[in-house]
């Protein structure tokens, strides 16, 4: 008279029939729910298109556009993807994360058949693409078809940032320089002036902590996955150092300026939370939005989230200024980043059509769409948008100093091996001199193994 164990599912008895019945009921409910809600699925996806006044192809053509997701890039990608998908033409701009973009780009452009026809490019990656002949020079196309594009509305400095070996290989969409952002209300209350040097910035941070109890008012992206190298570049620029000796491929990372730059990096880190090594832009923006931090130095294109009243209670309180320099009288500690679109050389789509699409993606209408979030490269639209951070960024752009990283094909390889070394210097595991020596050696090796 022992109680039976649960019967195996294969036996046909009332319990298993009930179970099958329940399964069927569950499946029906699920399908019904899906069908009902499917009405709205993806309804808002294809918005943000612009007028597409180009010569459409005769036969069905698909164009694939590669670009990472961000509030800065999406307006341009969506403008051309949604606006120009009509009749025979389909333009796809699949969602891609930032880290994946470079990988996908290289995979596509180095293969025999292209997965992507239009490639979004930016400062550190395009020199390699151009050096390998993966992206097409655009000068002829500009001469033939560029008149309607009014490319003179784009600042020549920005156009230059997408040139390689004297040839134009991309058309800029948006740009940004590193500028200083701060809480105007706190600075006013405590009588702090906008800092012009790093020591002033650190002093301001300490004062805010003393007077308001805010634990870590200064938050900078110091993530050794890449941001700390940007910080290093800022400081090196301000001190007048260079990455490479002249026009050669010989690194210059053990120069006195480079060593001093590392020392400054350590000083900066010690003025911030220990967690700064986990900070990338999202973390810093969040801290500013939630009032955990009161000042930072970020690329201007990332700042629009601070002005959104839906995202932060302090949307009205942020002020923007040119970044401080490391020392009195030095250059701004800044960097320049220009994004744009390039045409894949191995694409089988007609280059004329692709150029026209680039024109739409970088055109006036797209720039108006983007101007709410970032600074478009077209000066008219940029200034029309009246972005609070635009004047500071433009002042930096106009200054007569070194901006941005050198445009050499091995920049990416060198950049990637720097980060762990800088991380060790910052945490005090190695001294600045050791760090500089290691960085120099690592850069030399990276360039050699990359085949340059």
């Amino acid at each position, binding site marked *: *008279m*022992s*109680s039976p164990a*649960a019967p*195996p*599912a*294969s036996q046909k008895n009332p319990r298993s029939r009930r*179970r099958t019945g329940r*399964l069927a009921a*569950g499946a029906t409910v*699920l399908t019904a729910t899906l069908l009902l*809600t*499917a009405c*709205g*699925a*993806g*309804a*808002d*996806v294809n918005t943000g298109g612009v007028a597409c006044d180009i010569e459409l192809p005769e036969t069905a053509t698909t164009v*694939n556009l590669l670009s*990472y*997701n*961000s*509030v*800065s*890039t999406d307006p341009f990608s969506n403008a051309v993807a949604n606006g120009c998908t009509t009749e025979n033409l389909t333009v*796809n701009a*699949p*969602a*891609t*994360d*930032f880290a*994946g973009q470079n990988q*996908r780009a290289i*995979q596509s452009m180095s*293969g*025999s*058949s292209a*997965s992507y026809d239009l490639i979004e490019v930016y400062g550190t990656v395009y020199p390699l693409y151009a050096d390998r002949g993966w992206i097409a020079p655009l000068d002829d196309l500009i001469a033939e078809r560029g008149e309607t594009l009014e490319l003179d509305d784009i600042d020549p400095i920005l156009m230059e940032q997408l040139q390689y070996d004297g040839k134009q290989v991309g058309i800029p969409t948006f740009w940004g320089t590193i500028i200083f952002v701060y809480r105007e209300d706190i600075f006013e209350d405590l009588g702090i002036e906008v800092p012009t040097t790093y020591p002033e910035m650190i002093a301001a941070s300490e004062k805010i902590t003393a007077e308001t109890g805010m634990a870590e008012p200064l938050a900078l992206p110091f993530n050794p996955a890449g941001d700390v190298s940007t910080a290093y570049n800022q400081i090196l620029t301000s001190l007048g150092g260079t990455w490479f000796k002249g026009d050669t491929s010989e690194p210059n990372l053990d120069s006195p300026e480079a060593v001093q730059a590392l020392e400054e990096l350590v000083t900066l880190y010690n003025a911030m939370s220990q967690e700064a090594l986990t900070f990338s*832009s*999202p973390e810093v*923006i*969040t801290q500013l*939005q*939630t009032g*955990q931090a009161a000042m930072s130095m970020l690329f201007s*294109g*990332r700042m629009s*989230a601070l002005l959104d009243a*839906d*995202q*932060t*209670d302090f949307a009205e309180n942020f002020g923007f200024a040119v970044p401080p320099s490391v020392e009195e009288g030095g250059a701004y500690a800044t960097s320049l980043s220009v994004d744009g679109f390039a045409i894949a050389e191995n694409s089988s789509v007609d280059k004329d059509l692709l150029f026209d699409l680039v024109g739409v993606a970088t055109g006036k209408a797209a720039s108006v769409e983007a101007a709410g979030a970032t600074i478009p490269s077209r000066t008219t639209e940029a200034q029309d948008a009246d972005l609070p951070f635009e004047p500071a960024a433009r002042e930096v752009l106009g200054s007569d100093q070194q901006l941005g990283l050198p445009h050499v094909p091995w920049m990416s390889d060198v950049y990637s091996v720097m980060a762990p070394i800088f991380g060790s210097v910052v945490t005090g595991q190695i001294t600045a001199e050791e760090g500089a020596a290691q960085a120099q050696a690592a850069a030399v090796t990276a360039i050699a193994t990359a085949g340059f």
Partner: protein
Amino acid sequence: MTSITSRLSSGRRDPLASALVMRPTAIRRRRKDRIVALGIGAILSFFAFLSLSPFIWAMLTAIKPFRQAFTNPPTWAFTPEFSSFAQLWRGTEFAAVLVNTFIVAICSVIVALVVGAPAAYAFARYAGVIGPILLVLAVVLRTIPRFAIILPFYEAAKGLGIYDTNFALVAALVAVNMPFTLILLVGFFRDIPVELDEAAMIDGCSRFGAFRRVIIPLMGPGLVTAGVFTLLLAFQEYVVALTLTQNYAVTIPVFIAAQKGADDVSTYQTLAAASVALVIPVVLIVFFARRYLVAGIGGGAVKG
């Protein structure tokens, strides 16, 4: 007598035995059992809570108004909003990608079982040395890191013109999971007595007929087990799907990872909503299949 005490000591409730032999120690033991059971239930509930805690947190993050979602210290008093779910459903391709992932998952299961079950059966029944060799080879093949196979997969898919198709993705998923499927099913087949095969063949079935008519029906739980793991893989596999898909064949892990914007956390709420939206159907699948899973694994699918 032995049977009565054995029934009692195994903890099952036998009315007859209880009526005959209800002593004070038995009452105390029963109460102690109940306390122990309650205690265990509490501990298990705690573990279940731990298991769910990241998703509970994601849910909270998704329904808080954005300004309060990422404050430090966390905001506990807020009015829930469901706009992030609406944004996920209407503003992104989430629904379409979810459907596509289901399609890929179901196709993978069918192909994996159609290809894998006969092979596992053959490994279990064939007396030669090649069976064990292939099985050990399968284990070795499962040690290959994903990074070693994705580039050749990409080249092959492009070369064959099947890049960014569900076909290529299903083939890749089935191949990647084949070693696991085989190991699982071989153990199960081995538990079915050879006599059944022989009886069927004496009755006039061919080897394949015996397989189809006699063995397969006995294998319900085992097949479901192998099927569920293959299904889960389609929902979980990231690196292979990342390499082989672009516009049309995108699956959930690739889609969700791609939502992460580069600038700020404005997409994080949608990510949180996606996490929650994903946990529910997948847990439901496992929930419905749980008895089969337990029966399949216990029934010998894994008896090495």
